[in-house]
């Protein structure tokens, strides 16, 4: 300041206005407010992989050209590599011609060991914290099919327990799926090989399908899925086991990344007693055709709902 300092007078002037209590309080309130605004936006720090522009404008699966799909696959592979440090192999597998999948499960053989549950979790990159498991094994007493009285939290020292039988339940891939009917955005539909699939990038997470499913087959991602890096399965499919994001539904899809190239699903390959049977019902020489021809006692869960599942439970005797 070029002016020489003046002794203070009792009359308020320019300097007093700028350095007064009022201004100090105003400016500190504004500063604190701005600081608090910045701090309140701190949850945005965790949103690194929330969505990219490509993901946001991505087309519906059924409208994508092969070019679009290859770009999307590259985006997914980049994303997974960034998050987990492993470059996956993502494919868009189409249904095979002349194939309709059916699953048969032998309830005389199932011992309730839950190996299928964990093999599925490992194969399909499901969240471990919180836990998502597509397959739920129900323990029922002999002679009862009342699933409302089933116990799914059993943990005895050894299975099978006398007097009970075990029934693993997963998506039944119904002929008449209620989940497909209620989806408001058509993010889920049934393909011609019978598998009901979900486009995870189209799902809005309203959970109507979870409410509609009579078998509680559909799971919701309440948080970002927690997949341990060392157990990530890099062999992925777009409609199958690629890592999902927070806020979308997921469910058993008969391991599309395996079955659409001709392999058995993961739950079947790990079953120690061979209770699970899978195959093409349109092939008269497949195992499932043999079972439906030769065995006598079949159960479709909740038959009265009219969903007509592709999952047949049977007993030997």
């Amino acid at each position, binding site marked *: 300041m070029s002016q020489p300092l003046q002794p203070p007078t009792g009359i308020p002037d320019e300097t007093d206005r700028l350095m007064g209590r009022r201004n100090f309080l105003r400016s500190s309130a504004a500063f604190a407010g701005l600081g608090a605004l910045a701090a309140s936006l701190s949850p945005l720090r965790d949103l690194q992989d929330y969505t990219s522009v490509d993901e946001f404008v991505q087309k519906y699966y059924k409208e994508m050209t092969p070019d679009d799909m290859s770009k999307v696959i590259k985006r997914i592979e980049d994303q997974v590599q960034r998050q987990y440090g492993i470059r996956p192999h993502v494919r868009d597998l189409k249904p095979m011609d002349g194939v309709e999948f059916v699953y048969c499960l032998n309830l005389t053989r199932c011992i309730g060991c839950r190996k299928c549950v964990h093999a599925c979790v490992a194969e399909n990159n499901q969240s471990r914290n919180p836990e998502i498991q597509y397959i739920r094994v129900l323990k029922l007493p002999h002679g009862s099919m009342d699933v409302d009285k089933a116990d799914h939290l059993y943990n005895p020292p050894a299975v099978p327990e006398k007097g009970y039988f075990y029934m693993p339940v997963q998506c039944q891939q119904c002929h008449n799926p209620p989940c497909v009917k209620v989806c408001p955005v058509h993010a889920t539909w049934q393909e011609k090989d019978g598998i009901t699939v979900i486009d995870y990038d189209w799902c809005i997470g309203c959970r109507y399908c979870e409410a509609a499913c009579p078998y509680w087959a559909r799971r919701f991602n309440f948080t970002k899925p927690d997949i341990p890096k060392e*157990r990530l399965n890099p062999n992925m499919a777009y409609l199958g086991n690629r890592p999902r994001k927070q806020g979308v539904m997921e469910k058993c899809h008969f391991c599309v990344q395996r079955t659409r190239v001709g392999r058995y699903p993961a739950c079947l390959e790990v079953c120690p007693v061979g209770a699970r049977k899978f195959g093409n019902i349109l092939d008269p020489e497949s195992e499932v055709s043999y079972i439906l021809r030769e065995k006598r006692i079949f159960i479709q869960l909740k038959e009265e709902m009219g969903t007509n599942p592709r999952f047949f439970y049977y007993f030997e005797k």
Partner: protein
Amino acid sequence: MSPGHKRPTEKSLRRTNRVLVGVTCGFVALAVAMLASPWKPSTQARIPLVDPSFLEQTAWRKSYADLAREKADLSDFECYVCHEKKNPPPLRYDAEHVLIVPDEHSDIKMGHGTHNRNNLCYNCHNEGNLLTFSTRDGNELQFAESSRLCGSCHGPNYRDWEAGVHGRMNGYWNHQLGEFRRLDCVNCHNPHSPRIPTRQPAPPPHPLRLPFVPGPSAPPATTP
């Protein structure tokens, strides 16, 4: 001073100050709360990863054919190291007509058939040549063909096994696209006591809200 601007009174100044201080403190408290986030479940107990033994696809037992393929030690199957040719060992029974397994074969627990119906070694083993099996209708089978021996009595299960319906199949359901593997009977069933033993299950599903109190902890199951 601009026209119409009244000089603020002492009282209104104090009120304004209090309001501003209150708003500032509120914002600062909000900032602290957002940064510290005491309601975030950061210290919640984590669900442990499942034991990798529950993810294995290996069969419970190895068959003679498996051991031969792996060029493993087959000395257990050389019966004539101890036994005499043309002199089959006699079978001994106790008072309840239960087979007495000799001490040299103490690892064998006989339990084939209900009510001890099948407790006769020579129902399967060939008296004339201990290195082969003999079926009831007179066929002689090698050790590696043990499944046909089982099938000679257990027809329906054998036919199901051949169709891939009994026991587990691995590999490709579409046989044109890849190989499939079928296990032998003895890969799952101990031929001397074939009933599948009980085993420890994998842990039950955990609920969303932790901590989760699990069921009774289990010692690992033993296999005969």
